[in-house]
């Protein structure tokens, strides 16, 4: 297939961050992801697109083993992060998730203060040795989350009191605070208005400088705007994966074309 050929050449490229090989995911008897192979590059924004229920979220959640929390979910195949199999029994998902952070569709700030929301990750991972360091991490994360100016005067206010867009940026800042290497985002803008969406997109573009970002989106425009690579999923298959420009202008697979032009989905 198209992407296996690419895998061969990509293996020795250092910028490959995550590579998935023959990944299958089952929910009980449902076969949700069927034989997916993909190379996700470092310092790149990769977009997952596809019709609803095709398995985008499922695959995304495989990348930081969030699927472990679902009893009936079973994953086979290999997913390598920097060449290490993340499903190896020796790997602790807790350590993995510190490196592969996640932002969810609906903003989910904890019912704590803004400060504590951000400090949560650094605290559990022991990233700060003292209060001053923690303050620094919080400020840095909020700044990189492009929300510092809006909340710097009310760090003690509850995070749940922010607007939807602010909450989502808070969640992104919260994910950044643990210094992950990969950031997974599952439809991070679907609950946001256009202005907030624009802010978040801008933020994602900046994050590309230091992270590998994977974003699931239903918006073709958004995928085109923020991503360099795009993967199109359909009924659990990875149909096509390549440069975003190419996928949107010149798709190889007829299914991709019909989806992009709005005929399936």
């Amino acid at each position, binding site marked *: 297939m198209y992407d296996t050929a690419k895998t061969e050449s990509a293996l020795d490229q250092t910028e490959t961050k995550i590579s998935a090989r023959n990944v299958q995911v089952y929910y009980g008897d449902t076969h949700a992801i069927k034989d997916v192979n993909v190379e996700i590059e470092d310092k790149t924004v990769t977009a997952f697109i596809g019709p609803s229920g095709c398995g985008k979220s499922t695959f995304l959640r495989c990348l930081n083993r969030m699927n472990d929390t679902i009893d009936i979910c079973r994953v086979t195949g290999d997913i390598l992060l920097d060449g290490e199999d993340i499903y190896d029994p020796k790997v602790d998902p*807790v350590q993995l998730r*510190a490196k592969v952070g996640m932002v969810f569709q609906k903003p989910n700030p904890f*019912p704590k203060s803004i400060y504590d929301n951000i400090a*949560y990750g650094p605290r559990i991972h022991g990233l700060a040795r003292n209060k001053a360091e923690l303050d620094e991490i919080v400020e840095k994360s909020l700044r990189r989350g492009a929300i510092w100016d809006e909340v710097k005067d009310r760090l003690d206010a509850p995070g749940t009191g922010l607007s939807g867009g602010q909450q989502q940026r808070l969640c992104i800042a919260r994910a950044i605070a*643990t210094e992950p290497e990969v950031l997974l985002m599952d439809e991070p803008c679907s609950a946001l208005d256009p202005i907030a969406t624009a802010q978040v997109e801008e933020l994602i573009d900046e994050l590309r400088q230091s992270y590998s970002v994977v974003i699931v989106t239903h918006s073709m425009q958004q995928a085109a705007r923020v991503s360099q690579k795009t993967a199109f999923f359909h009924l659990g298959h990875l149909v096509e994966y390549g440069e975003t420009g190419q996928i949107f202008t010149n798709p190889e697979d007829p299914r991709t074309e019909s989806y992009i032009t709005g005929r399936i989905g």
Partner: protein
Amino acid sequence: MPTAWLVVFVLAVSAIGYIAGRRRALNSAGGDSRALHSLPVYYGFNVALSALVPSLLVLAVWLLAQPMLVENRVSGMIPAEAIPESSTLGLVMSDVRRVAEGLDIAVQQGALSEQEARAIRADVTDVRARLGDLGVALGSDVRSEVLSAAQRYRQITATGHLLMTLVVAALTLGGLGFAYARTNKDFRARNVVERGVLALLILAASLAILTTIGIVLSMLFETVNFFRLHSWTDFFFGSTWAPNFRGDSELSILPLLWGTLYISFIALLVAVPVGLFAAVYLSEYAHGHVRAFAKPLLEILAGIPTIVYGLFALLTVGPALVRVFGRGSEGLLGVDWMSGATSVLTAGVVMGIMLIPFVSSLSDDIINAVPQAMRDGSLGLGATRSETIRQVVLPAALPGIVGAILLAASRAIGETMIVVMGAGAIAKFSLNPLESMTTITTRIVSQLTGDTDFASPETLVAFALGITLFVLTLGLNVLALYIVRKYREQYE
């Protein structure tokens, strides 16, 4: 049981009314039920309900009101100078009622004829002794005003009863006749019946309010009587509980309240950690089958009647604790800190066991109400499950859990059997959990069982205790429900 026969009569008449009404309606339509406005059963029901409902309502109201009216009439007979000092009209009246009751029993058992009962005179016969023979104990000798009032009381009651029977019977027959006469094929029987049924439904729903009013009034009246006999400052602020049936009691709620709160505290100390951890494990960790097995088993603990826990405290836990903490050198610890099986610890531990499922199932609900997104957010940052639970789920569920604990506390404060059997009877302020202590509920039971004399503060104090308990538990409940509701709204 003439009242029961009256009810039987009313029911029988209604049944006849049903058949008659139905038949008359059908006849008026020439036997063709399609010509009727409503289905034939409605005509039957209309007649039956017309006979039944007004008469039963009047009966119920009459039964409730008659004692009050009789009391009013009779109390007028007692001259002010006949009321001894240190007593009140209400107390004299309770003597009157007791004598009247005694006479009733005497007549029933055939010790006195009806004539004798009416004519008996206090200055001739020793009424107290005679009634005493029949098992009706009177607190003091029967004075002649009291006796004649009692006789009058019986007389009015008897008349009232007769009148009631007549009125109810008349209403039944009248209702039947009226509805029967109205029955013809164009009569809108369904609408009338439905309106009647709706009224009955409303009546049933208001019974809840009536019960509350009944609870409050019944306790309030006697509490007021109590505070006439006993100073309220001693009750609320005194320091000693020492009822003395010869009078001059010290009746303060504070030592009882202390015992109640201490035992409840120990119960919560057992139930809250165990219940909360069990709930956390069941809802966050346990696999489906473990949950399906352990949860119902734990809930069995909540379905066991409190008498079982009481027995468990008295006969198992208490002696076991004595074996550990008591008996000097023969005991397990070689100490002699505990002498009897009843103690704060005994009652508290057993009550704690009873409350485990209460706390755990409430907390389970509350923990499950915390959105999964919260957990995902935390796990996605690389938190372990226990970190997620301790730092995200539990703080988010905190208000709900506080509500649950308050509900459990209210349960503990109002619990009776476990403390009656496990706590002991000594009212005191002590911090030693191995000593016997007593609680509000135990004292209510002990003051109101056996021979109760509604004229003595030692009996009446139970009502003051009862109303305090009611207010206390009600307050806790209202607060808890408020907190829980607020909490639920937060995630809706």
